[in-house]
């Protein structure tokens, strides 16, 4: 049985150590915020210029001047601070963010990441993704193990244009948890998934320990 999205997010949240400053990408990574316990002091950064991102607002409390990088209405917290885009990316580029969680189209065995562009399709832009993967201390990819057409997303070499080269540290999919460190090391396998199933669904060579 492969992991549900909820289970994947919960697993990803375990990577958020006490005191971590974390940037969560748009989409599934945003949901990881639901699994942050109040006990461990995790601070969320939003690259449009905010540290200390709070939950979504209650109805009627939304503020058009207070949005996250996905343009969603959010709230602030007592320890929040606001700053410019330049200051925000100085924080990111300068290696001050401990962890970034992003979605991906492809990850290669050397940690190359592709998640911004499909040739031939309209390109919306890379936004802050290239800055995040180049600057943040640890990059975690949270994605389905296979594309919708069933093709593997953990590949020998990305066929799609890269977002960053040798940037991914950890991959969490619905089938398992993988460390990128001179190859793809299998750290955990979802329940009832066999090694062979993992191998069948992965193009890159897997290292089992």
């Amino acid at each position, binding site marked *: 049985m492969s992991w549900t999205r909820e289970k994947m997010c919960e697993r990803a949240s375990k990577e958020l150590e006490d005191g971590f400053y974390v940037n969560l990408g748009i989409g599934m990574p945003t949901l990881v915020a639901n699994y942050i316990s109040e006990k461990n002091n995790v601070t969320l950064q*939003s*690259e*449009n*210029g*905010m540290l200390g991102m709070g*939950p*979504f*607002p*209650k*109805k009627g409390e*939304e*503020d*058009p*001047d*207070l*949005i*996250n990088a*996905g*343009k*969603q*209405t*959010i709230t*602030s917290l007592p320890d929040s601070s*606001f*700053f*410019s*885009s*330049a200051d*925000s*990316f*100085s924080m*990111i*580029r300068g290696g001050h963010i401990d962890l970034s969680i992003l979605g991906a189209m492809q990850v290669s065995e050397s940690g*190359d990441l592709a998640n911004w*562009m499909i040739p031939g399709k*309209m*390109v*919306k*832009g*890379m*936004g*802050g*993704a*290239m*800055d995040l993967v*180049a*600057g943040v201390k640890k990059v975690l990819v949270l994605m389905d193990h296979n594309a919708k057409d069933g093709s593997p997303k953990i590949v020998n070499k990305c066929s799609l*244009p*890269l*977002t*960053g*080269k*040798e940037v991914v540290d950890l991959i969490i999919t619905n089938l398992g948890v993988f460390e990128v460190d001179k190859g793809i090391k299998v750290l955990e396998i979802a329940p009832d998934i066999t090694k062979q199933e993992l191998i069948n669904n992965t193009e890159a060579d897997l290292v089992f320990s």
Partner: protein
Amino acid sequence: MNDKTFKKVYKEAKEALEGVLFDGMVVMSGGFGLCGLPENLILALRDSRVKNLTVISNNAGTEGQGLGLLLETKQIKKAISSYVGENKLFEKQYLSGEIELEFNPQGTLAERVRAGGAGIPAFFTATGVGTLVSEDKTHQSFKGKEYIMETGLTADLSIVKAWKGDKSGNLIYRKTARNFNPVMATAGKVTIAEVEELCEVGELDPDYIHTPGIYVNRILEGKDYSKAIENLTLSEE
């Protein structure tokens, strides 16, 4: 530009744009999505019909909102942005070749603008190394790590939106409506700021000014802010 008359305050956005516009100019516009947009100045820019603009802005607006307004009137020749999703009109004009597009990683875009305002013609960053962004760019290694060189950006005109501003041009932004506005204010040959509340000189605390008045050539109190929300998301309870 040094405004010799030191009369920075303008009543209307249209009036504030007088004498600074020309076809083919480079315009920077603050804002992230629809947040912190100089709404009045964008409208006045549209009404001016100035054309062949190169627009430097993180996004290209949505249909009928923000810089989307300048797409309708085909005033934009080229956009330098990090993300232009959510805009079918942009997509159409791009695919038909009417509009040129240069994507910059968001942090690189912010830093290029900051560099332009700070007299730094170029800097090195690891962002984009090994990607399409690095093509044709100077590569250099520092302490064993590879970087690419990016250049500073300036504009003929920067239009920015602040929360409060005083008549000497000091600006304060509110929450995440700050975004690209402060750096763009520094990088325009002429910078025009619109504010929600125009204050008398002395009303703002000198310790908390985000943009010192030196960067603002003209200032006006905007009106009828739509402050549209692009992606209303509420908590469930």
